[in-house]
């Protein structure tokens, strides 16, 4: 029973981190109509940058501020150099982001190396929760993700820029005609997407391994959250990420983790086939 609770809690914590990353994937898909194969690698770059910040300054908390900012900058540069020029070849965008993924992985391997590292959590110690000793850092990770997600929704619904983003997503042509700077919105959306994935990397780095291949595992999971939650349904994405990760955690306590992954993937294909707007379609918007 203790194992089930621990794995279930881990599932929820991971689900919140995944939600943060998947939201970035979802807005990039929704606004730019781009399937970002490199999104898992944006997360990976975040973990590696977090490791680098800690390595240089010895202070992990700095990474929470620095890495999303660097991620935002990288995202803006990539949007300008790669995404902007392929706007009129949308069918091939998936190929371009595949190339981007290759560059990021190999670039990190060339600079950071191919030996995985582990980071010690900046908060050590455990706390008694539901009858088990649970790591405090994981609770902090969950709280940090929730704050970041709430911040993102606040940005989207309470600021002018967020309103513009929603307008462009709804109808880019009318938005442009109304004087919204569409190109700038695309740039900022992509940059925000990168920054969120990178922040997810900072939050997750102490509870996972820092490795140039870390993005490969994350990517399918993010896609599952986006698809099952419903494309464009951002609340659905968050709910699906937490739910899927929690269920996978529970299944892992008595079965092979791969079996849990296969079950989620089958659920995802069923959703794609029969409920292409996600399982929450109609209930949230």
């Amino acid at each position, binding site marked *: 029973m203790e194992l089930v609770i621990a794995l279930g809690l881990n599932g929820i914590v991971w689900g919140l981190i995944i939600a943060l990353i998947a939201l970035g994937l979802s807005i990039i898909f929704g606004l730019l109509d781009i399937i970002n194969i490199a999104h898992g690698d944006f997360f990976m770059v975040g973990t590696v940058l977090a490791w680098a910040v800690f390595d240089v300054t010895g202070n992990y908390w700095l990474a929470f501020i620095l890495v999303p900012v660097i991620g935002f900058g990288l995202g803006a540069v990539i949007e300008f150099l790669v995404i902007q020029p392929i706007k009129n070849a949308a069918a091939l965008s998936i190929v371009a982001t595949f190339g981007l993924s290759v*560059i990021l992985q190999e670039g990190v391997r060339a600079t950071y190396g191919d030996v995985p590292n582990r980071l010690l959590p900046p908060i050590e110690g455990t706390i008694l929760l539901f009858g088990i000793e649970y790591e405090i850092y994981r609770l902090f990770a969950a709280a940090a993700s929730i704050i970041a997600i709430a911040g993102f929704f606040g940005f989207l619904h309470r600021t002018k820029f967020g309103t513009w983003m929603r307008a462009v997503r709804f109808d880019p042509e009318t938005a442009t005609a109304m004087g919204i700077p569409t190109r700038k919105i695309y740039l900022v959306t992509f940059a925000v997407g990168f920054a969120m994935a990178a922040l997810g990397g900072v939050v997750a780095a102490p509870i996972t391994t820092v490795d140039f291949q870390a993005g490969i595992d994350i990517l399918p999971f993010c*896609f599952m959250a986006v698809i099952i939650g419903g494309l464009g349904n951002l609340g659905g994405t968050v709910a699906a990420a937490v739910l899927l990760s929690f269920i996978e955690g529970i299944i892992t306590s008595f079965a092979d983790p791969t079996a849990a992954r296969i079950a989620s993937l089958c659920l995802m294909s069923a959703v794609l086939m029969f409920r292409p707007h996600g399982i929450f379609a109609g209930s949230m918007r």
Partner: protein
Amino acid sequence: MNVTTINRTGIGAFVLFTLTAPWLLPLFVDAFWVDIYSEILIWSLLAASVNLLFGYVGLLSFGQALYFGLGMYGVAIGVEKFDLGFWPAFGFGVFLATAMAVVTGALAVRLTWHYFAIITVVFSLIFYFMALSWKPVTGGDDGMPFSIPPVFSMGDIEVSFTDPTVQYFFIVITVGLCYALLGRILQSPLGRAFATVRENDLRATLIGLNVYAIRLSAFVIAGFLAGVAGALFAFFGRYASSVYMFYHVSGEAVVWAIIGGIGTLLGPIIGTGLLIILREELSSVWEHYQILVGVIIILTVIFAPKGLGGLWARLVEHVASRSSHGGDVK
């Protein structure tokens, strides 16, 4: 010179090169390039399957590695577990891949655009994870080696892949037959229907074409091609592994097809050849040559979305128009 003559000469030179490669290549470069060339031909079939779907029917599949992997496993499991001979194992591999293409295709081609790309990845991931965890049957990521049965044996005469010349020409003939079949299909009414669906599926429906059936047949043919490639690659490497079912392999095939030139029959061979030669030449010099590959991918998408095949077509037309223009002046 007109366009057809130039293209025919090019294809003739290519066929001649392929038929003489085992003797020609060792004269200039190391003999292992003959093996690399066989590998290029095999992988080009996987790129051709992507090209058929994307270039001719307009569906971008990111999951062709699934059918490649099943072709491999069919051969390896057929030989290792069921004691099949060469031909039955070959048939079993291709059958598994094609049957899987029928089942998954029946679901996948109901979707189009990005959704089609996603569902093909998802299907390939499902079976990749199964192959990875079902170790007793598949060997997981360690792979599954097997000893290759003879292609043909009668009394004392035995023809087998252990003879490099047999291996090379078996691969050349099989790949050649696949391209001939593909070329034939694309010339047929079905091939024209493919192009109609790619250009405008609504109009295709309105003139009475069954768009679903057309997409499905393209998907099954593509699965068949990928399956043949996988089966050949299993014989070539004498093993099968779940590594080849991962989506990175599908992605590489898409890249080969696009760099070679989408919608051209021989583009996949050019793209596959170029990138595999690049890998062989650069990987020993620069460990991180993949960065360059990524850059090439992005530059191709931005500046030459029709790939080398498209550039070649433009070059040939340019040369042809110049020479015909010169003729007019005379």
